[in-house]
């Protein structure tokens, strides 16, 4: 009881960083929706310049959120305003690209009928594209908000305020009880946001709650000492990007480390996620087992890669192993949930036919459920690999090695030209992986 009370007392001062983190996510998301939806409509309605917009959104999305946060902290200064700016840019790109693709997937007949009336692009979007895809838009929007809350912790880790800054402080001060409390708060926050996401799917008007919270945060967290001239000077100091001879020769190893963290982290996450998903699917095991396994997966998912990284760097030491484990544990949470849903969604008839031969549960899983779910499983895994290339750069910044660590060190030492060179290299490898996985996904969808 005393411990509980002590915990509660310790938690009270954390209300401010919790509010900051939640506010950053709301404000970033509000800006992203306001900017991203018109861009998505422009892409979907093939407005003039839509190819350029689509390419720009894809390119912008390839910059990891933490990298954006570092740039924002350098230009705007420490504090939540930098976090909001980073989240706003990252999620504008994400909303613009994914909403654009979802709008493009709308059934063509009703859209053609609207075009035949002579309606303009905005009318076609308002009366056709958006209502026709509202379910998918809401579903993805809720997922993006869920990610934004985790990302607001991540951007906090480089000085953008909120729980992330508190967490890094606690771990650096070796105060693990405080760090554990912060992680617990984060898990609860993500669970609340998850519930809010379900609410949005049922009552889309709940999205309107973002407006007052987002506007209030934007006002409260506005940059206090922002000077346009200073920002421009800082930007000027970043150009041209530059790497010296030693940095250039170390580059292949850094790239290899980052790629290894992403690939092995995804493989670890996929392996743990696969076996956990089998005992998290309602169609395979009883509900009581599902309830326990799903909560475990939710917890693994609620802790962002960077937080896993901070914990693991302390326990297994600095280096790529910590990065691989960090990505693996978080990915296990994400993939476990998605795999379990894929197992639940397979066509029932072949499963019933295999079970009707008297096959054991494991044989039925091996001969029916897994082969039938293989397509979605492969697509989820490739999406995760794409995401983990960004995350590998991010966990690198907290000591897991690779290009992320080099980038973070450059920022800490104010070597801005080197930092920007690493930002561009990170962007290029993420973009290359995006293109590769997009092609592989396309091939999987074709089969």
């Amino acid at each position, binding site marked *: 009881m005393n411990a509980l009370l002590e915990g509660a007392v310790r938690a009270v001062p954390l209300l401010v960083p919790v509010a900051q983190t939640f506010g950053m996510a709301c404000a970033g998301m509000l800006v992203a929706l306001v900017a991203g939806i018109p861009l998505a409509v422009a892409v979907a309605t093939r407005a003039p310049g839509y190819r350029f917009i689509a390419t720009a959104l894809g390119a912008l999305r390839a910059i990891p959120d933490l990298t954006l946060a570092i740039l924002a902290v350098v230009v705007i200064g420490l504090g939540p305003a930098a976090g909001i700016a980073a989240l706003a840019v990252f999620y504008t790109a994400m909303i613009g690209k994914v909403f654009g693709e979802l709008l493009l997937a709308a059934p063509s007949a009703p859209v053609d009928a609207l075009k035949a009336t002579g309606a303009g692009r905005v009318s076609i979007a308002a009366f056709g594209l958006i209502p026709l895809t509202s379910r998918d838009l809401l579903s993805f929007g809720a997922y993006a908000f869920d990610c934004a809350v985790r990302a607001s912790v991540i951007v906090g880790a480089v000085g953008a305020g909120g729980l992330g800054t508190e967490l890094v402080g606690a771990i650096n001060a070796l105060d693990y009880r405080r760090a554990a409390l912060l992680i617990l708060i984060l898990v609860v926050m993500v669970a609340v946001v998850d519930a809010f996401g379900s609410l949005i799917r049922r009552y889309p008007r709940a999205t309107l709650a973002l407006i007052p919270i987002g506007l209030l945060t934007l006002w409260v967290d506005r940059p206090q000492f922002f000077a346009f001239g200073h920002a421009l000077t800082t930007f000027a100091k970043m150009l041209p990007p530059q790497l010296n001879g030693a940095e250039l020769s170390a580059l292949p190893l850094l790239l290899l480390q980052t790629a290894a963290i992403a690939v092995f982290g995804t493989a670890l996450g996929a392996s743990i996620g696969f076996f956990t998903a089998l005992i998290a699917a309602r169609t395979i095991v009883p509900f009581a087992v599902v309830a326990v396994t799903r909560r475990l997966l939710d917890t693994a998912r609620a802790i962002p890669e960077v937080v896993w990284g901070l914990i693991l760097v302390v326990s297994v030491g600095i280096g790529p192993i910590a990065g691989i484990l960090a990505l693996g544990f978080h990915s296990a949470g994400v993939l476990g949930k998605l795999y379990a849903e894929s197992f639940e969604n397979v*066509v029932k*008839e*072949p499963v*019933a*036919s*295999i*079970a*009707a*031969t*008297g*096959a*054991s549960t*494991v*044989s*039925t899983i*091996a*001969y*029916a459920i897994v*082969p*039938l779910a*293989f397509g979605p499983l492969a697509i989820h895994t490739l999406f995760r690999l794409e995401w983990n290339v960004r995350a590998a750069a991010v966990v690198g910044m907290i000591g897991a090695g690779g290009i992320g660590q080099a980038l973070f060190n450059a920022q800490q030492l104010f070597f801005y030209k080197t930092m920007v060179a690493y930002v561009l290299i990170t962007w290029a490898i993420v973009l290359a992986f995006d293109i590769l996985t997009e092609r592989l996904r396309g091939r999987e969808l074709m089969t």
Partner: protein
Amino acid sequence: MISLRDVVVRYPGAARPALDGVNLEVAAGETVALVGPSGSGKTTLLRTINGLVPISAGSVLVDGIAVGELRGRALRGLRTRLAMIAQHHDLVDRLSVHQNVMAGALGRWSTAHALRYLVFPLESELDEARAALERVSIPEKLWAPTRELSGGERQRVAIARALVQQPEAILADEPVASLDPRLGTQIIGLLCRLTRESGIALICSLHQVQFAQDYFDRVVLVERGSLCEVESKQPVT
């Protein structure tokens, strides 16, 4: 061999029972056609015999064993004796034809054996799959990807899988509903011939009354969950 006594099946929330006091006796090696409109209870009847649907009242006996009282391993043991063929969608497209065919052996294989077969099939096991495919006249499809099969070929593979199961009865749920009449005739003829040759009982639900009258020993009319009429026929084949 199969005996249904006053069987009642009631789905939760349904206004009327799916099966309402059904009585049916099927002897070993006998072929029985169930005919009736959609939603009359034919599929439920077949699934009840296989223990896939819980019985609300009455009993289903297979060689004197009450299906409704079996659970877990015992129920799986019984299912190995009753093969099922569905209308469509019951093959796994990502597996090859031989893997789908040998899935019929899963009831008699250990789990380790089943997993090993997916990766390293033995020649003797492939011979068994080939022999089953020869009986349904498509041995050349042994290694073919299942997704490339035509509708008729898929049903032949489903029959081959049922034969590999070495069952005492086959429960076929509208196996030719998605095929054209000419192909449907071939498949029903093949199914009846193979089951008679092997002494396997066949209970088959059908929409086509003509098929039922032409090929089956007995025709049973299912209507609103009851067996309204039972008539014996001399098979033409």
